[in-house]
């Protein structure tokens, strides 16, 4: 005690003491933060969880699901609801990158719904474990091309459920559909009538339009530079870079935009009222796919599998394709019940063939480089 008093009463020593305390405190904060990040650094959790899974009856059944807004709709997991399990609690994500950051910061969910290109990030954080597909009766009916994309090290880390194209919607009264290319998005003849979406995928689209040789999603430094410069040059043709989906729909509908980066639902929404066509470019259409991943620390292992099975059901797929214009992984969908225009536009007669001929989303090891290149493009647009 006396020693402590002398420390506090001697100004020089007190300053030294306080400085030491501050440093120690700072190190504590640092250590805590690093622990948070590094705790996800290995995948030991997956095997530990798998080796000691309690039976379903021992689970609380209160699933926490981090989902896209709109995906909480009960019809998407009707069979799970009908089975009488406790209703899941949904929280919502606005982009997968934000969800990954929240997960790294300790945010907990049992299930979340990322695109296949981000499974590796969750895996690297140690946040996910492989599914036991034998607990998902509908799994055998799901598209094997998509399920292959949900695997890491030969294990099924994502049940890939919904998919769609990132193609081009065009006003067919103003633009020739037979060109059938991503070049619509860069065409000088459409100056002032083109709208891009705010995504680095535009650089990959420029890459395939130019016919560059490397992988468009993991381009060589030279090809990335060429594609970026092409985008920069073509910003002069832009009407807008859309961030608000409905604004883009309005602009296409009113004829302000003649060619826009879009997902298939734009076509489903607009085709009755406006002359539009959905273009799956000849270079190969960029295709996104997403599904459910399972937290490595979930305490609701069996409920999570039951939920994924409900989502995989053919009735869900039928309705998803008809109303949202998205693809569903279930191959038993009755196409006779779906608008023939939609079937034709999305190549649903042969979903495996359509997926194989396109450019399926994948993990982007150069994501930061693509993003910085995309920043340069947007900066040049101003």
């Amino acid at each position, binding site marked *: 005690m006396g020693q402590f008093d002398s420390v506090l009463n001697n100004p020089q020593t007190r300053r030294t003491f306080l400085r030491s305390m501050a440093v120690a405190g700072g190190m504590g904060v640092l250590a805590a933060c690093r622990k948070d990040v590094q705790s996800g650094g290995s995948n030991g959790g997956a095997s530990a969880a798998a080796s000691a899974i309690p039976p379903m009856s021992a689970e609380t059944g209160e699933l926490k699901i981090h989902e896209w807004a709109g995906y909480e709709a009960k019809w998407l997991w009707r069979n799970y609801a009908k089975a009488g399990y406790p209703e899941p609690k949904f929280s919502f994500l606005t982009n997968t990158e934000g969800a990954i950051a929240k997960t790294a910061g300790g945010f907990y969910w049992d299930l979340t719904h990322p695109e296949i290109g981000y499974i590796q990030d969750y895996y690297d954080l140690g946040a996910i474990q492989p599914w036991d597909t034998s607990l998902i009766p509908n799994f055998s009916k799901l598209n094997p091309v998509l399920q292959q994309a949900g695997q890491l090290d030969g294990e099924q880390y994502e049940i890939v459920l919904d998919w769609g194209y990132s193609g081009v919607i065009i006003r067919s009264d103003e633009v020739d559909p037979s060109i059938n290319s991503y070049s619509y998005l860069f065409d000088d003849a459409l100056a002032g009538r083109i709208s891009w979406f705010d995504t680095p995928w535009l650089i990959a689209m420029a890459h395939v339009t130019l016919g560059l040789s490397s992988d468009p999603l993991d381009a060589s430094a030279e090809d990335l530079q060429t594609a970026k410069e092409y985008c920069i040059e073509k910003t002069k043709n832009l009407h*807008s870079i859309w961030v*608000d989906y409905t604004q883009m729909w309005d*602009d296409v509908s009113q004829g302000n935009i003649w060619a826009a980066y879009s997902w298939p639902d734009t076509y489903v929404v607009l085709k009755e009222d406006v002359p539009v066509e959905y273009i799956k470019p000849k270079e190969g259409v960029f295709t996104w796919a997403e599904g459910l991943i399972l937290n490595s620390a979930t305490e609701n292992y069996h409920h999570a599998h039951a939920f994924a099975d409900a989502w995989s059901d053919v009735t869900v797929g039928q309705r998803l394709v008809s109303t949202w214009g998205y693809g569903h992984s279930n191959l038993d969908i009755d196409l006779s019940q779906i608008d023939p225009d939609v079937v034709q536009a999305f190549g649903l007669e042969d979903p495996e063939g359509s997926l194989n001929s396109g450019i399926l989303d994948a993990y982007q090891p150069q994501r930061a480089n693509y993003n910085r290149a995309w920043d340069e493009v*947007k900066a040049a647009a101003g």
Partner: protein
Amino acid sequence: MATGTATAEAIETERPRRRRAGRWRVTGGLLSAPLVWLIVFFLVPVLLIGLYSVGALTLLRNDYYLSMEPWRFFLSSDTYLGLFWKSVRMSLGVSITSVLLAYPVAYLLALIAGTRKYTLLLVIIVPFLTSYLLRVLAWRVILGESGVANSFLQTTGLVDEPVTWLFNSQFAVYLVLSYVWVPFVALPIFVSLESLDGHLLEASSDLGASRMRTFWTVTLPLSLPGVVAGFIFVFIPTLGEYVTPQLVGGPGGFMFGSAIQSAFTAGLDWQFGSAMAMFLVFAVAVLLILFGRFLNVRSVAE
């Protein structure tokens, strides 16, 4: 007797000491809540962002560990420094426009409106009871290619084709941001003008000064603290602004704040985003010091 005197002296010296100690306790008590708030919600986050920017904290396995690489890339990049200057230009433009638009409003309220000034002040604030995004998006209805303004111009025959620079343009960014910030600038100017000593204006008039001369030599100089406060109220937040330019700025709506947001979200590049965010914090601090010196805030306030 000597003991009595000593006791009295001791009491005399003890009282002010107690009073001082009491004052310190009150001051400390009053300051503790805002200080804790500032430390927890400002200083600690800024410290964490700083640590991310130099790789003392990492998010993903590919992140740099203890490295100045994010700073090196940022400071050597014409693109990101260019975006910073673009944001500075926009903030300056919006701040100046807001002050110019807000001053007459504040003047009217404080010196002309009389007893109705608080009612009118409320009227100015009413639009701010609705959502920020809603107000910004409402401009689309007004300025869009098929919006109210273009419909009016076409109906009256003033133009044949819609005016495209009204929306998805730098003009739209300046207009909407100025609209958003005018009331925030008007308030401090209003307070400055309202606290003006009316006798000074009367004295100026009695000495033969015209209304205009009174304004330039008495009213405006004395209201400068409010003008400076209003200017800074707008300048600092708009420097990092990215939502409004993104919604109404079109292809040119990509600002420095957008680049920070993009690094933290689409790029999952927290270290680079942190370097840019820290640069913004430093830049704001330096610009505030420069403003303080250039505008001589203290002497204006006195």
